[in-house]
């Protein structure tokens, strides 16, 4: 394998979202380049000159999987710029909204994108032939997440109901109660998912990560909290740009995020779990401990187990919210007309999502900045691959490539579907 090159280029995604290049020199990895196509940069320019009220719906189009994350970060940042304080009931509804998205997104990734790697199938379609019941359960679970999102968002895909100050329309208690039986089933299915993922085989591979996630004094994080890490970071989210930097790298049109003076870091389920295990509800903690999953989890392949635990959390949290919900006096509070700048971070399924907006006194967006989780993990993925690929020198080319793609999918990046259809060129 001396001098071997692993080169992976996208085929199915015509716009070419991601590609992977690994250069081996003997048993050493000489170079790793992961290129990720990054639509948020276009949206930052697209938002300039638009009224802030359009930002939630425009940013929701950035991602078909996590539109709520984009809406929530946009809304919280704009509310911060305008000094808006939302009703506690609205806050609860936003947590429920996020529960729906996490159920959809984590189910999709655990069962349909990541599990085929562990079970030796090229995709979920092949997997369904041998594991029909598993896939049918996943589809039902995902559909329950869709139901929550549809009720609160007004429609199934690219929801439109979330607004600065609240929602355009809020549900009744009865509407939420109608979800309970489904979510109770989903909670049981999620507990089974934890057990199921624990039965998969994981390579012995651990990394010394700096984990970065939100942390809230009372709850597992969705929309609020300070930004913390396992190496002493503890800041208000407004100070994000003082501690994190983006660097241009020649091989990618996406920017590499780093913590100033320290380098790459990891966001997403592993970071949340390791930094907030004590904030998980007991049902989720117990589910994790039953399968011997406890912080710190440093094996990125075990992220599939952590996502399953977060499914348990999302279902339990959804039931809690529905039990406590009283409709707010008004669907949304009125926004003052003033200039201002606001920042927000929320926990998208695949990690922290940073938004910053500067508004003029007419409510028009002067500048927008969006840093998605996949961009933040990009350098960390390369660091993983640098170590992991070195262990694959003795593997046949096709298996080594698959293993590298699986390592990328640990992060549930926005290139997941592309990496399922990659072609490999070998240079010796």
């Amino acid at each position: 394998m001396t001098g071997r090159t692993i080169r992976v280029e996208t085929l199915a995604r015509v716009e070419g979202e991601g590609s992977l290049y690994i250069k081996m020199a003997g048993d050493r990895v000489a170079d790793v380049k992961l290129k990720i196509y990054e639509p948020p940069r276009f949206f930052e320019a697209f938002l300039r000159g638009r009224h802030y009220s359009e930002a939630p719906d425009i940013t929701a189009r950035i991602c078909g999987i996590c539109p709520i994350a984009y809406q929530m970060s946009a809304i919280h940042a704009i509310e911060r710029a305008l000094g808006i304080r939302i009703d506690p009931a609205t806050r609860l509804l936003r947590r429920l909204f996020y529960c729906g998205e996490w159920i959809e997104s984590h189910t999709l990734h655990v069962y349909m994108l990541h599990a085929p790697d562990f079970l030796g199938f090229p995709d979920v379609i092949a997997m369904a032939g041998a594991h029909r019941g598993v896939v049918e359960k996943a589809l039902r679970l995902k559909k329950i997440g869709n139901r929550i999102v549809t009720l609160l968002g007004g429609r199934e895909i690219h929801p439109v109901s979330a607004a600065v100050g609240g929602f355009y329309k809020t549900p009744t208690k009865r509407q939420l109660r109608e979800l309970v039986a489904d979510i109770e089933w989903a909670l049981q299915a999620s507990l089974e998912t934890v057990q199921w993922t624990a039965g998969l085989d994981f390579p012995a591979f651990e990394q010394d990560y700096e984990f970065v996630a939100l942390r809230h004094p009372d709850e597992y994080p969705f929309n609020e909290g300070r930004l913390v890490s396992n190496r002493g970071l503890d800041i208000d989210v407004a100070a994000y740009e003082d501690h994190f930097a983006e660097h241009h790298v020649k091989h990618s049109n996406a920017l590499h995020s780093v913590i100033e003076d320290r380098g790459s870091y990891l966001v997403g389920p592993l970071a949340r779990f390791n930094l907030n295990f004590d904030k998980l509800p007991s049902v989720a903690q117990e589910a994790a401990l039953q399968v011997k999953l406890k912080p710190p989890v440093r094996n990125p392949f075990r992220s599939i187990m952590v996502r399953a635990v977060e499914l348990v959390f999302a279902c339990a949290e959804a039931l809690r919210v529905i039990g406590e919900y009283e409709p707010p006096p008004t669907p949304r509070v009125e926004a003052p007309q003033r200039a201002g700048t606001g920042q927000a971070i929320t926990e998208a399924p695949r990690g922290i999502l940073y938004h910053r907006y500067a508004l003029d006194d007419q409510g028009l967006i002067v500048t927008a900045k969006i840093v998605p989780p996949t961009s933040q993990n990009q350098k960390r993925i390369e660091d993983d691959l640098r170590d992991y690929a070195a262990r694959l020198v003795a593997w046949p080319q096709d298996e080594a490539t698959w293993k590298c793609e699986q390592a990328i999918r640990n992060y549930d990046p926005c290139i997941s579907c592309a990496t399922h259809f990659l072609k490999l060129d070998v240079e010796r």
Partner: protein
Amino acid sequence: MHIIGCGNPECGDDGAGLLVVERLRELGIEALGVTTRTCPGEATGLLSAWRSDDALIVVDAVVTGAPVGTVHRWDGIPPAASSPSASTHGLGVIQALRLAHVLGCVPRSLEVYGIEGKRFEPGSPPLPKVKAAAEDLAQQIRTTIQANHTP
């Protein structure tokens, strides 16, 4: 009868399927007993949008190397090489249909139309030939459905 249009409206020709469905709505297709849906993202949610005894038409952008604006038609699920999979991460509608096939819930009648695209960059509008193809296809679908419609 259900008609589903797929694609991202912000990514040029990728929105071709959405253009067809939007035009069909303007042409009053739903008054003929047809339900329409658009799918700009991950598609497994659509598996519950039809029953196995339904008739379904899917319209999506494709890249096969044919001239831009070419309209392709398949009875049943297209072969793998024809699938654009131009959705965001997750499964595109063609993959969702293949999954439905494995799970035994493919609609009894399935027609898939693909409009050949070329420009998919975010922020770019659809090419004129793609827009024209979407208009022609919408008219053709409506005419066919109306001819078979019994009030």
